[in-house]
């Protein structure tokens, strides 16, 4: 079969278009002028302003704390859940599993609204606690489904062999099961972390007046108008993302 060129051209053009806004953001982050349609010369002043901005630093710290704690909780709940449901299948288990997947199957806005009304009904003060609860609910599905898929493809003979050879169930878990499901837990974690770190819709509903996450902060800034500081922030975040993905790419290549 001869290879045609136009599919490559198509994919290339679409990819290029998706990068236009990103590249523009990067270019304009070095723009001296405050107005984005005018090029006022190269400058790093927005970066200086960004690093001086205490609010942004605080929001970033909040976002990191939130994403890490939700991920840890979700790993515990999602992994034990997947293990338990893998061992014993029942209709109730299937029902609970379905319910636990719901948070990523319905529009985020519903989840946000639901949490806001329930938390205010329960009288929980809005802040980090409510944020962590809400984020954990939508982090669990990523980890649960990854671990479940991995368990389904695992050979049960491995665990049985270890048990037959006299290992305690705890030992079997740490020496056999955990190493086998660890990649699944990690890839679930990466997804869950990204979703939590990026979430605006749900966070807006359950955040308190004193706690801001980074996306909520950016959102309010964007609504009030264009500040070139966001360009600088976007560039820094983009660089961090590319760095992390590149490292992951290299690690993946070394393994294979």
């Amino acid at each position, binding site marked *: 079969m001869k290879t045609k060129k136009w599919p490559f051209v198509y994919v290339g053009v679409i990819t290029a278009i998706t990068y236009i806004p990103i590249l523009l953001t990067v270019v304009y982050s070095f723009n001296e002028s405050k107005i984005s349609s005018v090029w006022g010369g190269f400058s790093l002043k927005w970066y200086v302003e960004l690093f001086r901005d205490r609010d942004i630093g605080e929001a970033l710290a909040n976002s990191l704390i939130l994403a890490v704690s939700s991920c840890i909780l979700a790993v515990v*709940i999602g992994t034990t859940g997947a293990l338990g449901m893998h061992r014993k299948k029942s209709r109730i288990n299937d029902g609970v599993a379905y319910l636990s997947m719901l948070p990523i199957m319905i529009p985020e806005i519903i989840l946000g609204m639901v949490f806001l009304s329930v938390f205010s009904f329960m009288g929980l003060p809005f802040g980090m606690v409510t944020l962590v609860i809400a984020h954990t609910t939508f982090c669990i599905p990523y980890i649960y489904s990854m671990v479940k898929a991995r368990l389904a493809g695992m050979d049960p003979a491995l665990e049985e062999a270890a048990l037959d050879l006299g290992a305690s169930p705890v030992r079997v878990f740490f020496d056999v099961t955990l190493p086998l499901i660890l990649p699944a837990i990690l890839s679930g974690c990466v997804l869950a972390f990204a979703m939590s770190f990026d979430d605006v819709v749900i966070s807006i509903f359950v955040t308190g007046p004193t706690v801001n996450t980074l996306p909520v902060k950016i959102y309010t800034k964007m609504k009030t108008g264009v500040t070139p500081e966001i360009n600088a922030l976007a560039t820094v975040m983009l660089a961090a993302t590319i760095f992390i993905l590149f490292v992951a790419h290299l690690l993946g290549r070394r393994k294979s």
Partner: protein
Amino acid sequence: MNKKKDNHWMLLAPIYLFTILFVALPILYMFLLSFLSRAQVWGVDFTFTLDNYKKILEPLYLDTFVQSLKLALVSTVLVALIGYPYGFFMARMNDRWKKRMMLLIMIPFWTSGLIRLYGWIIVFRSNGVLDKILQGMGLTEEPLKLLYSYPAVVVGMIYVLLPFMILSVYSSAEKLDDTLVEAARDLGASPFKAFWTVSFKLTLPGLLSGVVLSFIPSMGLFFIADILGGNKIVLVGSVIQEQVTKGRNQPFAAALSAVLMILTSLMIRLYRKITGTAKLENIV
């Protein structure tokens, strides 16, 4: 044996507790809330009423629903038209290029959605980059005033949703067996017919899951319409948010959410029915 059983319940306890407490009960509460009325000053009155649902049928809110559905539909169709060939062609590339393209898709995907939308503000704003280019080419003279318009919102939607479509089409097109297409061609099918009867049929589940994955979030992505559409385009999502924060009318917001949720689950059901056993969560 007994020991193993105890162990099994200990494993299940956290997910049961958490799911019942923070997913099942809150959603039940939302449905209950949608039948209650709003208290005079603050909070909720526990008297049964159907008023919230009647209110949705008022032209003002019904229009919003229709407009949201329309925007979701337009965005999803465009996402499918752009994303399907992309995912399909990507699956036909060699391994090295597959990895590279995957990285190129993942970089914007992992960057904050808000920040990616911000770039479009720079493109669309009046006398912004797009205006400059069009004017430079002599195509337009006046600024187009694209920011805060319907097309800008559609572009924003496509931009945010496209990766979902590409990835799910890609994952099903990758499993496609080339020999099947070749067999069809050998048996005398035209390239188009071979594509339509073999390739398209076999990648349909990927396309459909992409459609579901783009359609569902698009109903709730109020911030895109907010940022790129100004206050001109009001979606169900924006109404829910407004009712809950400014309007302090939780029961009405609950009714709107309930209707949205029923619409969503109908879509998922339909998807399951068409694709049979394939599960949505497999591609997440």
